[in-house]
């Protein structure tokens, strides 16, 4: 098992390097001119050239790549863990990501946990009584929730729960503008507030998470329920479940046989969905003005901030790879047929 993990991590690193190089060239293939964006309208020739020089864009591509990776003598690079400096804010990309990423991770992880806890029992019940009333209700719900993009639901939730009912705080970030955030330790507001001994800030952070999390749960539950239901229905049709019934095992035991068999394939899909949502939560972050990694990525792209774009792609991919590895390990723990 240990060897397998080492191997996967090694392969992951190779993938990341390949991806870095690919992204590096791809964004430079775009018909964009970051230097002119940086110097503003109608710059002088010199100012423009100077900006290009500053960004290193006047160098040959391979030299630029070498500098980015840290292979040249110009300073530390990616291979030493340095993501470079943002061209827009001039602060290190690494520390910027470290402030933006936890917001998204917090949002997406909590949403997934809740969506998972809600969806699995619903999917199971649907599979146990196919065509029953609850099964049909879930089907209709899935259609309904999937009928609109998540930002639309987010806006609707804001309208109903903040504007009309006043139950939720304004969609203006992770905390109210009046509250000063706790000192950043992990970057996760919920954790940092507790570490700082500020339960009121913790509660406030949770209140601000309610609507965005609800939006994501609302949208994610549809597909997860459908998937669990499908996998569960398939497991229930399996020969070994039929045989368990033949052998007179109690219904609870039979249901556990099926659930375990349904869990393994569901985990994989949930892992993929999670990796996807790390980047895909941007619309919801936008609606609720949450300073998440999606927002950061959009800003970086619009400003042609190459180091920031590369950093975000790299970090999200690395995270996804870690999640996939974790999922595969869980899968292997559930299913003895998988040998590494």
């Amino acid at each position, binding site marked *: 098992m240990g060897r397998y993990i080492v191997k996967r991590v090694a392969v992951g690193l190779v993938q990341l390097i390949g991806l870095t190089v690919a992204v590096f060239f791809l964004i430079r293939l775009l018909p964009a001119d970051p230097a002119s964006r940086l110097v503003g309208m109608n710059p002088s020739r010199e100012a423009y050239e100077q900006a290009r020089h500053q960004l290193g864009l006047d160098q040959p591509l391979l030299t630029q790549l070498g500098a980015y990776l840290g292979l040249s003598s110009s300073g530390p690079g990616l291979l030493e863990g340095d993501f470079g400096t943002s061209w827009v804010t001039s602060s290190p990309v690494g520390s910027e990501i470290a402030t933006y990423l936890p917001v998204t991770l917090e949002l997406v992880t909590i949403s997934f946990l809740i969506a998972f806890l809600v969806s699995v029992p619903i999917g199971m019940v649907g599979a146990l009584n196919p065509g029953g009333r609850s099964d049909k209700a879930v089907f209709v719900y899935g259609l309904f929730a999937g009928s609109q993009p998540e930002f639309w639901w987010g806006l609707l939730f804001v309208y109903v729960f903040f504007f009309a009912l006043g139950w939720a705080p304004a969609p203006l970030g992770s905390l109210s503008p009046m509250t000063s955030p706790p000192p950043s330790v992990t970057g996760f507001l919920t954790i940092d507030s507790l570490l700082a001994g500020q339960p009121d800030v913790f509660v406030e952070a949770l209140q601000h998470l309610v609507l965005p999390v609800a939006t994501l749960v609302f949208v994610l539950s549809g597909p997860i329920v459908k998937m669990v239901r499908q996998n569960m229905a398939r497991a229930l049709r399996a020969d070994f479940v039929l045989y368990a019934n*033949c052998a*007179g095992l109690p219904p609870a035991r039979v249901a556990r*046989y099926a659930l375990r068999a349904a869990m393994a394939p569901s985990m994989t899909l949930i892992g993929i969905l999670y990796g996807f949502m790390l980047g895909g939560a941007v619309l919801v972050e936008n609606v609720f003005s949450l300073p998440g990694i999606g927002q950061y990525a959009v800003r970086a792209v619009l400003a042609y901030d190459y180091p920031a774009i590369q950093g975000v792609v790299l970090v999200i991919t690395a995270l996804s790879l870690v999640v996939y590895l974790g999922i595969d390990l869980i899968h292997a723990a559930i299913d003895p047929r998988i040998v590494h």
Partner: protein
Amino acid sequence: MNAIEPASAAQLAPPPVLHVEGLSVSYRTGERVATPIRGLDLTLRAGEIVGLIGETGSGKSTLALALLGLVRSPGRIVSGKLLFGGRDLLAMPPDERRAVRGRDIAIIVQNPRASLNPLLRIGRQIGYVYRSRAHSSAAETRRQTIELLREVGINDPERRVDAYAHELSGGMAQRALIAMALASRPKLLVADEPTSGLDVTIQAQFLDQMWQTVQHSGSAALLIAKEVGIIANYCDRVLVLHEGRIAEDQPVRAFFRAPLHPYSRAVLALQRDGAAKLSGVAMAAGATTRPLISANGLSKHFPVRNSAKVVQAVSDVTLDIWPGETLGLVGESGSGKTTVGRCFVRLTETTAGHIVYHGRDLERLSGSELRQARAKLQIVLQDPFDSLNPRWTVAELLGEPFRIHTKLGRAERRQRAADLLKVVDLEADLLDRRPRGLGAGAMQRLNIARALATKPDFIVLDEPTSVLSPSAIVSLVALLRRIQVEFGVSYLFISHDLTTVRYLCHRVAVMYLGQIVETGAVEQVFARPRHPYARALLSAHLDPDPANRRVDRRSDEQLKGEIPSPIDLPVGCYLASRCPHVLPRCGEQPQNLVPLADGRSVRCWRVATGDLTGDALTGPLV
């Protein structure tokens, strides 16, 4: 705990264990409703084994499950009564019904491995079943489980109890299911083709065990089988399922003497006609002094992943095949038959040894000579659907060898393809069709036609009949014999179907774990096999003759346990762990194939020294 002892007044017939009345089962898929079981009545009595046969799709498996009150989704038991010990199973509260299922009725299903939970160790699963019937501690359950596994003949049960289903062979998985089924000494055992996919020696072990269980415990058994040989050898009564009802119900001897239902007559006639049509192979005797093709000291090892060890698929096989001859290669799965066949046509490189064709070592041939030789050496594979590209038309499929080996034009190739179709008795209007819609029999004919395109003098037939229906087998064998007479080809016929080998082959070689253990003329070997393995294999073969039942004859040919892994083979005789005649010396000394006076060769020192004589097997084999 004790079930109701039925107070039968007249002790003439044993008391019924299960009485089924007006049972109907239907499947609803969308708008269509199929009702494979329609108002079926049936009685099973204590101490009898009842055979059930019927066409495929006639509802045998559906009935088997329905006897426990279960159906596969989306099926439903529409009506009927299942009177078990006088109480209707279908009218019971669910808890009681479940208790009856666990305790009194057990089932063994068609597909053993899929019936085990892949995610749990088998010991856990058997333990759950055990504990759902009797309260016991975890340690006690484990002890009992190990004991059960030992009883059903699993080697090393202390270790296997912690195995997962995918780590078991089909035979072991089946034994684990048997362990579960027999755990509670059920009053009724339902076995749905319990031995399909098992090797014959394992099949014999299982059926013998089931027979003994029923005899000793006075329970009843319903045995569903495709082969009438099984029915004849193990059943007391035969039922025929047809159009959702029992269409015939006869004692086994009467059934084989005078079958009543047209389906029964057709099934039995097929076997007899087949025998009549095929018996008596005469070899086209020619004055030949040299074998057409031979294998000398052939060995083939496959590397094992992540290990320095090797699988010894074939070790030291020496075989001659003469012009116009058919050599049968028999043995259980994994014995290396296919690998030998593939080495003969050089589809697989050999690890050691040579293939000599027309007196020349195939390995020494130059490129163009080898290509020519290849055209003359053909192989027909087991699964006809695998080996034909479904996107090509029949004309393209059959024309391809001509495109590769000749310079014929398109029209000529088509003509040749049409000729080949005629040779294998297929209609010429197939030419422009794709093979997709064809049945297995026709597909296999196409494969043979394709092999014939290059006018080969040697064809390896690798289990060509294993996916065919009985009637298709009979006609394919007739075709192969006609082709042999017409074109003078030699065959290496690989099969585990001993009846077909008997009909088609002149000589036979019996393989076990990569070695040939006995080889000789078919009549010789089939009538009086000498090697203990050959004896076990041939006596495990079940003839459809209720007058000469395996259970009535004394059988000391039974092998113990399972085939060992071909990775860690013993030093001495490979059969030593299973042989009923084993002596200490067997395990120490490697065995060689020794020629006997009567022309055959046997790999067993006890036979070679005349120590083991071996009677003729009682009764004709065909």
